[in-house]
């Protein structure tokens, strides 16, 4: 693979991938907050 092609791929997949994964993490975190809400804590 040429360096140009490699660099382009890395920029697209890398930036896009990081953004996508962290967006997914944000969704996961919102889910976690729904599943384990703050009020449930006191019931423990």
């Amino acid at each position, binding site marked *: 693979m040429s360096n140009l092609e490699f660099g382009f791929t890395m920029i697209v997949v890398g930036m896009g991938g990081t953004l996508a994964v962290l*967006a997914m993490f944000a969704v996961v975190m919102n889910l976690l907050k729904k599943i384990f809400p703050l009020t449930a804590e006191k019931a423990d």
Partner: protein
Amino acid sequence: MFDAIVNGLSGLGAGVAHLHWSNLVMLAVAGLLLYLAIQKDVEPLLLVPIGFGAILVNIPLADLMAEEGFLRTIYNMGVANEIFPLLIFVGIGAMTDFGPLLENPKIFLLGAAGQFGIFLTLGLALMFGFSKLDAVAIGVIGACDGPTAIYVSSKFAPHLLGAVSVAAYSYMSLVPVIQPPIMRLLTTEKERTMSMDSDTKPASKAAKIAFPIVITIVGGLIAPKGLPLLGTVMLGNLMRECGVVNRLTKASENEIANVVTLLLGISIGATMDGRLFLKGQTMLVLSFGFLAIILDTVCGVLFGKLMNLFTGGKINPLIGAAGISAYPMAARVAQREGLKYNQFNFLLMHAIGANTGGQVGSVMAAAIMLSVLQGMGIVP
């Protein structure tokens, strides 16, 4: 008899005779690193051992990095097999409170934008003729995170380890100098004075415990090659949040982190042998690294503006600069800049959220880079 004494004496002082000019330069560089660490408080925990390691390895004939040299032994013990940076990550995870991030998860996106410099710099380095793996190691300086930079460069470009690590750690402490002008340039006065509301809901203890476990599994499945980095940070964080293994949490933050930092530092210094280190290439690496951090900041702030637009003015773009991983410097910078333009503007918690998001972001950026390299068949 006389000959024998002369021969014997020749063993003493042979070092002076073998001094290469590059060793002298490196002794000066080592002196500079020690000066920065001791006088200017630039990451002393790393730069003191690195500087001293660089002195040791530039004494000719001591051969401390030869096959059986003691610096080589330490290097093989934990740098060659990447254990040292990973153990430090356990400690970092144990010290990090992801609470502010959990309070406002969308801030996580800023932690992604703060890594864009990694990939842009990687592309630039390729254009300047660096090989693929060297470009990866140079880009990772933009992760602005010591252990990640060390892990990636010791794995793929060990000959650049010294330059990459020194760049990562010294630029990290230059964050308070590098970032503010960029932040001012890219934002309007009105944006900088924006307050951010804090009516977000804090996370429960159970959510904080589940966070490291779930992130490890999800992130690991997406980018398995980065699991060593992600897994160790999250192990440390799980130990912190679960609250039942304080002995281990303390050991990770203190005993392990201290011992490993010392050994890691001298090992990195030990890669700075003048004959290998003083090349035009090294200067390029240092320059690209600097650029990477500038690009991180630019992308972070611009992305902050974008988010501000989309959320209808709920995000102060200044905290975008905190999306880089340099923790907690970047968060403090954002807070300070915000206060300058609006003395009732408390951005700190939001900035810390973005900053811890940047820590996870830098790890995930590296993880993605490693997994993509593998997917392309460039590394096994």
